[in-house]
């Protein structure tokens, strides 16, 4: 009887832990799949690094024109305290379909038809921006993970400006890479879940 109780307690612990971990993974997948399904799409050009992440493997570094916000595009008040400062960036497509920065703000930006608002990650070294400054921001879409050893082709294409990326953006401004194109052709096409 004692043995049975002991087993039951340990097993409940194991089930609890495994269920929690499954829920975390499920939530992470669900959140991203939701952005892919429901988010609004923008197209981005990429610019001209074969690094490797210990946990996630080889990746190609992606940088975007919208990753650098000129100071004059920032509207509204500037925060003085540098902790957890995020920029909200409104992007709108140009005639060729690629999105560029329309305006940016430290406060929330209202919705406007034909545009999409992205929320940046917290700025790492925040100083009150001065005139002529260019503020570098990240959106959490700066890496494209590729099978081991296959990053060179995409990098070569990227360095020639031939890589473009379709990104889906959730209503709260979180960005998610949907598809990467080399010369207009999608690569590593995968279902969203």
């Amino acid at each position, binding site marked *: 009887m004692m043995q049975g109780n002991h087993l039951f307690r340990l*097993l409940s612990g194991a*089930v609890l*832990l495994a269920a929690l971990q499954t829920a*975390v993974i499920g939530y992470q*997948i669900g959140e991203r799949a939701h952005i892919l399904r429901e988010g609004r799409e923008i197209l981005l050009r990429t610019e001209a690094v074969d690094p490797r992440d210990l*946990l*996630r493997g*080889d990746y190609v570094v992606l940088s975007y024109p919208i990753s650098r916000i000129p100071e004059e595009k920032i509207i509204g008040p500037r925060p003085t305290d540098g902790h957890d400062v995020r920029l909200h960036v409104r992007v709108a497509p140009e005639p060729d379909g690629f999105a560029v920065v329309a305006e940016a703000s430290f406060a929330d930006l209202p919705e406007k038809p034909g545009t999409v608002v992205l929320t940046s990650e917290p700025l790492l070294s925040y100083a009150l921006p001065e005139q002529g400054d260019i503020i570098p921001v990240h959106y959490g879409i700066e890496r494209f993970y590729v099978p*081991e050893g296959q990053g060179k082709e995409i990098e070569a294409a990227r360095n020639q400006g031939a890589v473009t990326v379709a990104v889906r953006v959730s209503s709260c401004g979180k960005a998610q890479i949907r598809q990467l194109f080399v010369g207009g052709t999608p690569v590593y096409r995968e279902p969203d879940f």
Partner: protein
Amino acid sequence: MYRARLKKDLERWAEMGLISQQASDAMLEDHDSRSTTPAIGGVLLMLSAVLLSAAILLLVAANWQAIPRLVKVSGIILLIWIFHGGAAFSLAYGRKATGQALLVLGAASFGAAMSLVGQLYHLSGDLLDLLYVWIGMATLSALIFRSGAMAGFVGLLALGLAGATIDQFNFAWVAETVWTPPLLALLIAFLSWFTGNVRVQNLAGLLLLGWLAWIYGEVMRTDLAVAYAVGGLVLFALTVLPGLARHAVVRLAGLHALLLSGLGLVILNSIYDKGLPLAFVAIGAVAVAIVALVLRGREDGQLRSVAYLIFGGEILYLSFATIDSLLGTSGFFLISGVIVALLALGASQVEKRLQARKGRAVGAGIDAGWGGERP
């Protein structure tokens, strides 16, 4: 190590006729039956779990296209369930080593699963979030199963998280970089106490020492280095107090306190690299080593090594840096050598007298009341 010493002592006492051969054998047997040193099979099992964990993590990182996405995700979630379920069964049926190894595999699979999600959805800049959730789950596992191995796993993740935090914020002085390492050290200390895995405390000590070294690098103030050297020695002296010294945790803390003192001395040596100030720092270093040896050198081999390291390091450094000149340094060594010899003479006199008193007490059949540890 302790067993070898015990055996030697028991043999000696049996030979002297103080105890019978049976008593000696029985004592040794009793020690073996209570022994907490892990069996070699369990150690190998844990090594194998570490290797398998690395295999799972690297399989994910390889981003192998031959396995479809859905199979990868469901496979790794299945692994999480199998490892945790297996651990529960193993622990329930008394197979402790297997259970602990399976818990480690389960925790590694969870980290691999999160890495996989990040890879599938091309996430960047979220390494800290990943590590927070991973440490959270590993901590929960250590608490639920009271697992010493998982406490160690949390300790290693904590070192990774502290490093990643400082890297992420470009070594800047912000709340995250300043508070993450000591909070993680607290977590490790708590888990170490809760699971009874004393050795994990070493990771907490390492984390704190690294943190203090980094803080010095940020503020670069001489008084801080002095505070390390003196404070470390004072903390160490506190851990020698008879009531505290019985606990293994306190002894380990004392070791790290002495290392802190050593850290302060290294910094001071680099600040004052010539002349009289260097001589004072050197006197300080030799004094720290001697105080440590006198207070606890007899019982504790690890501590002796640290004290020798401080002593030997300082002598070697002085020989290269030299106080003013080779002649000056030689004079310094001569004076120090004479002083230490006098100390040694004094110490052995005290030891002899103590021993004589103890001998009389035992001879008179009186329990002298020494608490097992030397004061």
